[in-house]
């Protein structure tokens, strides 16, 4: 009985995690400019990772694999937002101004340093 419950919970978590990943991916593609796309990317980094890994941990029960899964989740949650922050910081410093309400970023051209 417990077994079945665990399975169902982890299936649900995995499904929602998968959906989150998909939403993040689509967001990354359709959003107008750089700073909005960074939100979409960070969504997948944190939420989807959390859901998928917890779902898998439930599946693998108490074992070395669970410890590894926990370590991977921890490092992903640690490094993902850092990288996104550093990226946004570098973009801001080098002059890519976030948009007010025009929606289309002034510096759209490719030769942005």
């Amino acid at each position, binding site marked *: 009985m417990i077994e079945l419950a665990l399975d169902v919970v982890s299936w649900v978590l995995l499904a929602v995690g998968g959906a989150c990943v998909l939403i993040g991916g689509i967001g990354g593609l359709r959003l107008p400019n750089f700073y909005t796309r960074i939100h979409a990317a960070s969504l997948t980094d944190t939420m989807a990772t959390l859901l998928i890994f917890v779902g898998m941990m439930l599946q693998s029960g108490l074992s070395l694999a669970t410890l590894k899964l926990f370590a991977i989740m921890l*490092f992903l949650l*640690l*490094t993902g937002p*850092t*990288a996104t*922050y*550093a990226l946004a910081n570098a973009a801001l410093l080098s002059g890519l101004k976030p948009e007010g309400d025009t929606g289309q970023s002034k510096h759209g051209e*490719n030769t942005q340093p």
Partner: protein
Amino acid sequence: MIYVFALFLLTLLVITAVAIVRTENLFVAVMLTSIFSLLMAANFFILDAADVALTEAAVGAGVTTVIFLSALALTGDWEKPRPGGRTVALGTVGVLAMLLIYASFDKPRLGDPEAPVHQHVAPWYLEKTPEYMDIPNVVTAILSSFRGYDTLGEVFVVFAACIGVLFILGVKPARQTAAAPQPVSGLRHHLIPQVVGRLLVPFIVLFGLYVQFHGEYGPGGGFQAGAIIATGVILYALLEGEAEALRAVPRSVLLALVVGGALLYGAVGVVCMLKGGAFLDYSVLAADPVFGQQLGILVIEAGVGMAVCGALLSIFHAFAARESMT
């Protein structure tokens, strides 16, 4: 079921390869190259090559991207487009492609067990490894003992690359910039990456050591460990600045690591000779041949790890020092 993944990832691979060749901004090409190596590692993993995927990950994502970027920083990152017809190049290359695809129909289908590859030498390895070495990871057993001579050659290829880069970049650049080479401050004012990085570096080096000594039981070994530890120290150099990293791991230590690793590997072979076995025959190292094999594999994996880590780091420092000069 694996066909779906294989099909999917291989198509992505081809798209990325074509995109790399077509783009003219070299920086974009380097970014796509790191995606290319991510895809290669995923493909290897699906085709049951866990060790190779780990090597491609450790070497491709970390070290290759960093070396390419430091070379781009020293040269320009724009490519002058080449006008004119590309029919000749496309023609010769197209003929080669047709020839290869034509020849591929006689090759054994992906994964069929009757292929000659699986009949002759491979079953012997799979059967004899538990008997001679009693270690789970057959790839490490072949890499270090059955074909240990190849890996010795491999360590000396890395050694040659290291002394080659030191030799070629040993020449001072002609026009030394008037200003004293100001210390390359790492991502100084990026406080958050610095804090997280300082937290991360010990774990990367610890994971590198884990991969080093876990080589017999799971995917891992000398090459992967050396590359991961080198990536850890490179991360420290990126965050704290290259001068700081040199203080932590000075050049003399790096040279000692490379030379020590190569000599350690060779010394194990010579000791086997002196003890009456053939070159690199570890079973003579200890009374019980199986224990001798395990001891030999452990020591030469340590030698490989030292050599690869020292070589990759001295290559990185050679390029980074060049950047601060010009």
